[in-house]
């Protein structure tokens, strides 16, 4: 017969007693038998945690040159619970002689420490250099509580030339600490804050490790309690050419604008520049971070990546899209001519051409070369706003291009449906005219313009833009192109027009010509506000077998045919010299 239930319950109580007795026995062992040992650990000797930061992966250009890397740096730090209050003054004085900073400053830094966590040390002097570090190391016996910490220091050899591309890193805030702990992040780790540092954070990030050591009152190692090896992050290899990146940034000196150069072989980005720029090295040290406020206050917004963030009216470079849409629709041929008297009246409103005396009779090639507005008003009306809108979307506008940089803007292409829902009115012919010459509600980012011209150069294949080629030696990207439904004859005609823009004597883009290659392109001078214009140039080279495409955008930069085309000429020249075009 089984045991009665009542007895069973009492037996369970007995099992509980046995379990608690086991705990009590262990407690006795810890507190009474080994109590002295633990007491010593807690009182005299200290557990010290030495952080070993995993080195962050490098950002390398297509030829292996480092755009972001790390070097070894030394910090002079204090362990708060080991540095006795009475010793602070004396220690600061000894250190100040070596470090060349006043004893008061060092003392203040120690006292102003934020409420440190269990194993935080206080940095007294950051990145002190090997020589000073060795001199302090020799004196450590007389400086209880002082340690020399080594850590990898992030450096950006190309500085402001690639700042928007590399981005920068910064310490974590409390929420991020809590959330990322699960993924192996630790108290002191830094995170990629912008650019590729941010988009490839999980790849670049190394896993921190550390030593837990037992030290005596003089800070001497007694024994290691535990080790966790740090793990380095993975290197990322880019499609970018760092020297081109630097060259372009020099051309942009003193302007507000952006340049994107695309390798047409695989859609890889050869350079992506934004000006004015900032020094990402400043963000990488605690000392430097005190100075970065100047960037945030600067009216020129140097932190803004104008290549992917700025949405602007594209002006006449958009005539490429208008021409494609009109020809594809079949209402006009490349040989149809339109007479330009200097203005056109559409829906009762007068629309001027930029040349008030008029261009006379123009076919597509001439109209492109001269950027005749009247021709393109008519071409736009022939195509219709719907066709232009649809083609723009096919060309990747009105949505982010998906390049591997954070916070890309989408730009905007207006449509009949949008006008109805947002403004509550119908679409007017005048708005089609405005759209045809890249004005009105239309907004395009420089990188979208670069892709649009790439698709033309590649005979209707829109490349997917990308910056990363390899991760840790493994291929990380397959080139991919989206085929557009555009008649080859139409593309040929538009490309002939773009060739004429640069290579005829009356072409608006003749300043973009470069030695050793034949450039094709289109200029744009977009109205922005009353008297100011944005300067645009999109183009590719060589004209017959394109290998590289580019966009030059200058915010309030005057005329596209002058300032933008001149920069394009310089960059094409460089590309020819280095064998890219």
């Amino acid at each position, binding site marked *: 017969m089984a045991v009665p239930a009542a007895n069973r319950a009492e037996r369970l109580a007995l099992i*509980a007693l046995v379990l608690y007795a086991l705990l009590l026995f262990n407690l006795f062992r810890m507190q009474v038998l080994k109590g002295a040992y*633990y007491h010593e650990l807690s009182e005299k000797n200290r*557990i010290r945690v030495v952080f070993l930061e995993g080195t962050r992966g490098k950002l390398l250009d297509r030829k292996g040159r480092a755009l972001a890397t790390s070097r070894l740096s030394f910090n002079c730090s204090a362990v708060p619970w080991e540095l006795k209050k009475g010793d602070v003054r004396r220690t600061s004085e000894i250190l100040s002689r070596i470090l060349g900073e006043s004893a008061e400053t060092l003392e203040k830094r120690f006292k102003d420490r934020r409420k440190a966590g269990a194993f935080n040390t206080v940095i007294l002097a950051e990145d002190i250099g090997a020589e000073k570090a060795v001199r302090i190391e020799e004196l450590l016996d007389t400086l209880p509580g002082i340690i020399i910490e080594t850590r990898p220091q992030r450096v950006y050899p190309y500085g402001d030339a690639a700042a928007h591309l590399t981005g920068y890193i910064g310490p974590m805030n409390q929420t991020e600490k809590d959330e990322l702990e699960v993924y192996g992040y630790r108290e002191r780790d830094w995170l990629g804050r912008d650019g590729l540092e941010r988009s490839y954070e999980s790849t670049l990030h190394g896993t921190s490790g550390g030593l837990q050591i037992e030290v005596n009152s003089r800070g001497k190692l007694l024994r290691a*309690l535990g080790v966790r090896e740090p793990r380095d992050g993975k290197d990322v290899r880019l499609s970018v050419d760092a020297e081109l990146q630097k060259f372009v940034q020099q051309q942009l000196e003193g302007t507000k604008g952006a340049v994107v150069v695309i390798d047409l072989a695989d859609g890889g980005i050869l350079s992506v520049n934004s000006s004015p720029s900032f020094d990402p090295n400043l963000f990488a040290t605690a000392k430097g971070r005190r100075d970065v406020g100047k960037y945030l206050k600067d009216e020129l917004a140097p932190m803004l990546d104008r290549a992917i963030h700025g949405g602007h009216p594209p002006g006449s470079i958009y005539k490429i899209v208008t021409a494609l849409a009109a020809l594809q629709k079949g209402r006009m041929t490349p040989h149809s001519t339109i007479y330009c008297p200097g203005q056109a009246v559409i829906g009762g409103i007068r629309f001027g051409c930029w040349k008030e005396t008029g261009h006379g009779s123009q076919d597509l090639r001439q109209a492109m070369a001269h950027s005749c507005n009247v021709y393109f008003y008519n071409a736009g009306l022939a195509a219709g706003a719907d066709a232009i809108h649809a083609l723009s979307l096919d060309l990747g506008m009105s949505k982010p291009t998906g390049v591997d940089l954070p916070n890309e803007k989408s730009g905007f292409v207006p449509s009949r449906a949008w006008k109805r829902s947002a403004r509550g009115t119908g679409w007017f012919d005048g708005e089609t005219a405005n759209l045809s010459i890249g004005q009105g509600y239309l907004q395009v980012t420089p990188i979208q313009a670069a892709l649009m011209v790439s698709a033309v150069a590649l005979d209707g294949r829109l490349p997917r833009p990308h910056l990363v080629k390899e991760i840790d030696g493994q291929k990380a990207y397959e080139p991919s192109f989206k085929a557009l439904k555009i008649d080859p004859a139409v593309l040929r005609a538009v490309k002939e027009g773009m060739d004429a823009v640069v290579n005829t004597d009356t072409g608006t883009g003749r300043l973009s010509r470069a030695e050793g290659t034949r450039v094709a392109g289109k200029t744009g001078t977009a109205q922005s506000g009353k008297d100011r214009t944005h300067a645009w140039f999109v183009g590719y080279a060589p004209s017959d077998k394109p290998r590289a495409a580019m966009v030059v955008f200058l915010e309030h930069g005057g005329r596209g045919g002058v300032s933008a085309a001149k920069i394009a000429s310089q960059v094409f020249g460089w590309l020819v010299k280095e064998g890219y075009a």
Partner: protein
Amino acid sequence: MKPLFDLKGVDRTLLITPLLIFAIGIANVYSASFRTGMTFDQTLATKQVIWMGVALLAMLMVSRFNYLRLSDIAWPLYALTLVLLVAVLFTPPRLGARRWLHLGLFSFQPSELAKLAVILVLARFFAENRREYQSRARALLPFIIVGVPFLLILKEPDLGTGLLLMPAFFAMLYLWGFRGRVILGLLGLGLALSPVFFHFLREYQRNRILVFLNPDLDPLGAGYTIIQSKIAIGSGGLLGKGFMGGTQNQLHFLPERHTDFIFGVVGEEGGFLLCSALFALFWVLVRRGFIIAAQTPERFGSQLACGISALLGMQAFINLGMTMGLLPVVGVPLPLVSYGGTSLVTTLSMIGLLISIRRHRPLF
């Protein structure tokens, strides 16, 4: 209607023991959350006292309620729990886990409700079906009753709560009439299958278990807590370093010291003497629960008391074991001692149920 504070018929042991444990707890929460310059009302101890008021009220209310009526809502409550446990898996994760349902002002953990619901349903099933008359297939039903919410809780993941269900289940199975030998066999099978199980755990859960097996593995993370907690407890010695005298505690060496690792503070400042007293109090409380189970002839109440006692006893055991480095860190608070309102209210409500069983059980 009797006034709420009429204590006639309230089991004295079940009233006084929790209060004594809480007294030890509040002193240590105060010590753990105190920083120089704080007045009493600025420490977490004040909040904890307020929560205690709420929890005591809940306990008295539950104790006046005839527990037999719970039998009727057992299945609906169980069904609701399953729905909530599934719903919670579709919420955005917080700290890598999906445990919380956000209901406007406060958030709620369905796994807390699951503890009660599973015990209620099991008690009802065991009360209505006698072990001797069950077919083999039907005897499997209790395993399904526990298994479904258990797996859902592990999916969240909330290893601590999931594991707590097991001892309560086994205790109730034993009371129902399963042989001790069979239950030991099941435990052995569970242990043997645990490597397979290990495979399905999240990375941080695996790390915790690996770190438990070898604390040196991660001296910065979970291992650090265990090492520091052991140092804190061990350094307390026989008599402790005295109230507010613990260096591990006061110098903030001990992470999570007012919640899951509060026993580190008790050990360091109270020493072996206070700790033994605390163990004794927990034992008295748990023993009282099992005695009520033994003395209640009505089977639903008996099973209910058994489940609750096993749950409370095991929760304390797991927490104490993990702070001493005997068990893996699973994130279970020490009942009545750790800081936290939800835990207080749940624990005292369960003790309230024990009181209700003692008070309302039909005596033939």
